């Protein structure tokens, strides 16, 4: 049943793509259909997010596992929890905004179909809990994105698309290899693994015999004779639980792999320790997407060349998949490696913040500037992940949402400006706010959002991450250095505001610019409102992200404690 509800996220883009293919090739019609197609996604995701916020627990809201290839342990395993619900809701909003401002020059039918396929990949990645399908959807995103940049991009679109492709492929091949390594490193006869009692409480289901089930596996205890026997659900309320185990076979199931976390830390492959090898192979795949320093170089190029709507999608949602992947796939599997490498990972975050910030200061192209600001802002996500406590992890997730809003807003506005002026030079404007007051107001808002002004969403993520960074002794120096991001972000964003919006009108021809159109307002105003809401009342999101983060943090601590 759960899988049927969640199939909305697959059916809408697939059927939508088919529908778009059948429609007459009229730009306005295709655009309208695209807008409408984003609405059910947004609606369902928001409803699920609301559910997560009210439930305030780490459990999955909906989850179903349908075995497909039992011999290999491949299953259609879909599930949604607070974290994925929040990011899917963001995805729906981004899709809506991108559809609003999409204006492909030619071949618009193909463009809209590709966007649907792109979001199919996004939804799949957020929902699938099986490594094989997760990887498939991860790759599904790559292909439409490549074409969207290569066909509808700017002058150097092909080089940018290839660069994007090479980087992402370069990352995802090790990911695939790591998945196979993990699969085959489990002994063929399977394993009994101890499980964290709190996780059983959070996620348990009750089987037909009244026994406790965890992720569709029976939870066992060892009785007096040393035989494993099912654990009765009725006893879950006991003050102290006996040691509980689950039997695990070879599979590609990400949740089962999470339960195997104690095993990965001692397993070997080809005579080498498995954990560091697999961890770094997988980390690279997701770090490219974030993009973490020093794997970020594809991003400015891709952003500058991509059309506005695609830049919005790229910054708004695709980068978040890197963070999501680390939170969902890598961190739960290798707690020991996360803790051991915390200082290095945090340093990567801090360097990204400072390096990206300085690089943004040095840009003369507005889009490239926003691209580097993304690198800087996403550095906070890396730092929060490295801190690995509730503050850090929920901060990283919160930062994903707030950066999704701020970067999308900035790209939408830069795109709107480019459409009018046909250039993006920071120094080529002046006094725009006199000509386009609405644009000016929203641009200033977006800059303040990016600069982490309290009262807006950006502050909550950065604050949480800094609190988390300071709360982990291994990441304190990085957190200290990262706070310089508040100076840098104000520097490059408000300096841009000064040069573009303020001062006298420098070019008389700009006086003919029209203020934001209603489509542009429809795309931006919801984001403005949401940033304000999340900044003033962060609990509406934090209540969904916090429990998931706390559970992950507790899992990390528990597994490390077993060593």
């Amino acid at each position, binding site marked *: 049943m759960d899988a049927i509800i969640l199939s909305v996220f697959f059916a809408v883009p697939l059927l939508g793509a088919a529908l778009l293919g059948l429609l007459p090739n009229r730009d306005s019609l295709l655009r309208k259909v695209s807008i409408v197609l984003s609405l059910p996604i947004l609606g369902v995701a928001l409803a699920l997010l609301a559910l997560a916020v009210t439930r305030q627990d780490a459990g999955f809201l909906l989850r179903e596992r349908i075995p497909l290839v039992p011999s290999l342990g491949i299953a259609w395993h879909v599930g949604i929890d607070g974290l994925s619900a929040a990011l899917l809701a963001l995805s729906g909003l981004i899709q809506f905004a991108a559809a609003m401002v999409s204006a492909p020059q030619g071949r618009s039918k193909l463009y809209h179909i590709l966007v649907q396929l792109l979001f199919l990949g996004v939804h799949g990645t957020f929902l699938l809990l099986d490594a094989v399908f997760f990887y498939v959807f991860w790759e599904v995103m790559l292909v439409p994105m490549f074409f969207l940049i290569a066909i509808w991009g700017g002058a150097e679109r092909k080089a940018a698309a290839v660069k994007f492709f090479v980087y992402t492929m370069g990352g995802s091949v090790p990911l695939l290899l790591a998945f196979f390594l993990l699969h085959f490193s489990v002994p063929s006869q399977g394993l009994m693994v101890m499980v964290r009692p709190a996780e059983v409480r959070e996620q348990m289901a009750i089987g037909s015999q009244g026994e406790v089930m965890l992720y569709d596996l029976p939870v066992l205890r060892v009785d007096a004779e040393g035989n494993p026997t099912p654990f009765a659900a009725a006893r879950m309320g006991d003050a102290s639980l006996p040691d509980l185990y689950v039997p695990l076979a070879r599979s590609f199931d990400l949740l089962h792999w999470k339960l195997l976390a104690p095993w990965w830390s001692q397993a070997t492959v080809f005579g080498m320790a498995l954990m560091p090898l697999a961890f770094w192979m997988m980390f690279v795949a997701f770090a490219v997407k974030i993009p973490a320093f020093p794997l970020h170089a594809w991003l400015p190029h891709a952003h500058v060349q991509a059309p506005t709507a695609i830049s919005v999608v790229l910054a708004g949602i695709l980068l978040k998949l890197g963070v999501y992947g680390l939170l969902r796939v890598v961190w739960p599997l290798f707690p020991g490696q996360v803790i051991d490498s915390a200082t290095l990972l945090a340093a990567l975050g801090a360097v990204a913040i400072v390096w990206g910030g300085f690089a943004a200061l040095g840009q003369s192209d507005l889009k490239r500037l926003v691209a580097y600001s993304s690198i800087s802002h996403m550095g906070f996500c890396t730092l929060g992940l490295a801190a690995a406590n509730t*503050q850090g992890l929920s901060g990283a997730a919160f930062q994903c949402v707030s950066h999704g809003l701020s970067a999308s807003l900035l790209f939408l506005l830069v795109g709107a400006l480019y459409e009018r002026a046909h250039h993006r030079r920071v120094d080529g404007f002046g006094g725009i706010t006199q000509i386009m007051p609405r644009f000016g107001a929203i641009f200033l808002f977006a800059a303040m959002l990016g600069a982490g002004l309290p009262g807006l969403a950006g502050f909550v993520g950065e604050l949480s991450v800094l609190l988390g960074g300071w709360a982990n002794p291994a990441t*304190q120096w990085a957190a200290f250095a990262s*706070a310089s991001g508040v100076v840098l972000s104000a520097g490059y964003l408000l300096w841009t505001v000064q040069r573009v919006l303020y001062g006298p009108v420098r070019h008389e021809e700009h006086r003919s610019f029209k203020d934001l159109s209603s489509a542009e307002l429809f795309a931006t105003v919801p984001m403005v409102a949401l940033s304000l809401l999340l900044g003033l009342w962060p609990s509406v999101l934090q209540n969904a992200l916090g429990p998931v983060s706390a559970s992950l943090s507790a899992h990390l601590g528990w597994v490390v404690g077993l060593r």
Partner: protein
Amino acid sequence: MQPHALALVVLLAPLLVALPGAFFWKRTGNALSLVGLLVQLLATVASVLVLRDTVAGALDGAVTVPWLSFAGTNITLSLGVHLDGLAAFMLVVVQVLALGVLVVSRWYLHGDRFFGRFFASFALFVFAMNGVVLAPSLLQAFIFWELVGLGSYLLIGYWHDKPAASQDPEYQEGKPFHATGVDEDRLSPSYAQLKAFLLNRVGDFGFMSGLALCAWVVSSWTGFQGGDPLAWDTLFGAVAAGAFAVTTPLGVSGTALLTLAGILIFLGAMGKSAQFPLHVWLPDAMQGPTTASAIIHAATMVAAGVFLTARITPMLTPGALDFVLWTGAITATVAATIACVQWDYKAVLAYSTVSQLGYMMAALGAGAAVGGWEAGTAHLFTHAIFKCLLFLGAASVIHGMHGIQDLGRMGGLARKMPFTAIATGVATLAILGVPGFSAFWSKDAILAATHARAFLAREAGAGAWIAVIPHLLVTATAGITAFYMARQWFLAFLGKPRDHHLVDHAHDPDRPTIAVLLVLAGLSLQAVWTGSLNPFGAGSWIESVVTLPAKGLLAAGLPELDEHLVHHLHQETMVQTLILLVLGVGAAAWLFLWNPARGGYVADNLRRRPVTNLVWGFLANLWFLDRLWTVLGGLIVGVRGGRLVARADLGSGPSLDGTLQGAASTSALAGRIVNLFQGGRSGAYAGWTALALFGLVSLILLF
């Protein structure tokens, strides 16, 4: 009504103007200003009631609601309203001054192209400051602190459409003949707002780090009961219980850690309160309307830093207090020396604000044990009143002079605008510290505190002569202050008009403005503050209202100084300052009043001799600090650094991208990919997508 609820009303009331104003300021300018005035009037009344209740009930506590919690930890960050004497009194000061400034602004900005926007931004600014004042925790202080920054950003950049000063005919017309040290090619309202925000952010880097450090230390302390680790009570309680002694972040522990935390948070205060060397934004901030300067320099923004430092005093270690003391003393002196050579009417006031803020910081740094805390907070209040008055007087003068701000072209304004002259005169007497006027009481207390501090340090022995320096600096500054403030008033209001055409047409402002000036002048009298007509009487009614909470490091009780000793030090200080006052005013009178021919050209005279020319040039160029920030901070670190990193990152440099791009361009694979997809038709693309998908899936399933 409960005082906390009433305080909440005061806090939120300005939003009634700010929120609709943000959208409709263009159409509703006049109505907005009237509503703003009305709302502010109500807020003022409410704040007075809050003060009354706070004093009567001896309230000391907070009402909060949870704002952000972290599951799995016992940390819940809260927002709310915290009331004690300091907060309630500051709240009244802010409301009263905001009301006065609103009245004057309606006159001063009448007919301006952005008229309505001023009132919307102003309301936001007041809202933010109220939030800082009522903050129950370090976090809320920071949140509203940043909003204060936003408010100042909007007000300083009020005339955002103006070009750089060198291109601006209005600026060129109004600027003084002797003006120096202003970077006219850069200076504009939009530049000033950016500069203010960025320099504040430099301080906030410290504030945010200090905040996170405290949050961690307190929440990881075994005595932490859950809740908000940054709430004042929790934080100071943890400090008192020695929470900072058990952890070692960044390799620092114990007192050193607490000192570090204190200095980090104080860095934020240095930005907001324009302390050396972060003070360079404040003089530029006069690019905003003069009435905006009146509130920025008095009750909001710069007051926030002093207020915060007063608030966190229970966690400041002797080391951190020394840092505060030295910063304040240096700031006071540097700014006062610069003020001596300014010819712009408002620039004198701007540097006097920086200098006076230095006084307050020095007092707070001298420590509560020697009465520095009471002196610093008292001066925060008295200064707010007379500095607001000075700036509103400046608004009147500049309005009367049709935008001319050159002291060299004024003179003899007293006959043309008597009310302005009298009110400004009272404020000047107040800032000079003349007996009978408010700062005589508060500034004397500051000097007595630094004196006692130096005395104690001398008693303690080690490094004795160094410990005296801050006191010497602030004492000398009292004389310098007397000189430059008297100079300004003499140059503007006395003597013969140096530009007859302009001065003859000057006139007093409208009646409501005059009323505001006179009320503020009345509030600048010492009797209002000490409750006694005898200027040399001891004590004040405020000291019983605004009291330092005995928490944190102060929980152990303050050392008692011998009463005779205190009295003796106080008298000594008083005599010294009165002598310096006479000398300072005398010098100003001699140079600019009795030798008017000389005074006007004193700059030229100074320039004739090499040594004095050097000194004059140094001061007139603002100790080169402004330029240092622009060149080092702005151009070298910001612009050059940015370009350097940007270039290194683009793939031309030795970065990963450079390597990869080289590899990709030569690789046959990449070439083939491009060739395959170039020039295809839609069907081909769709086909390739499907094929790629199919390939991947089958690959995985076959494996």
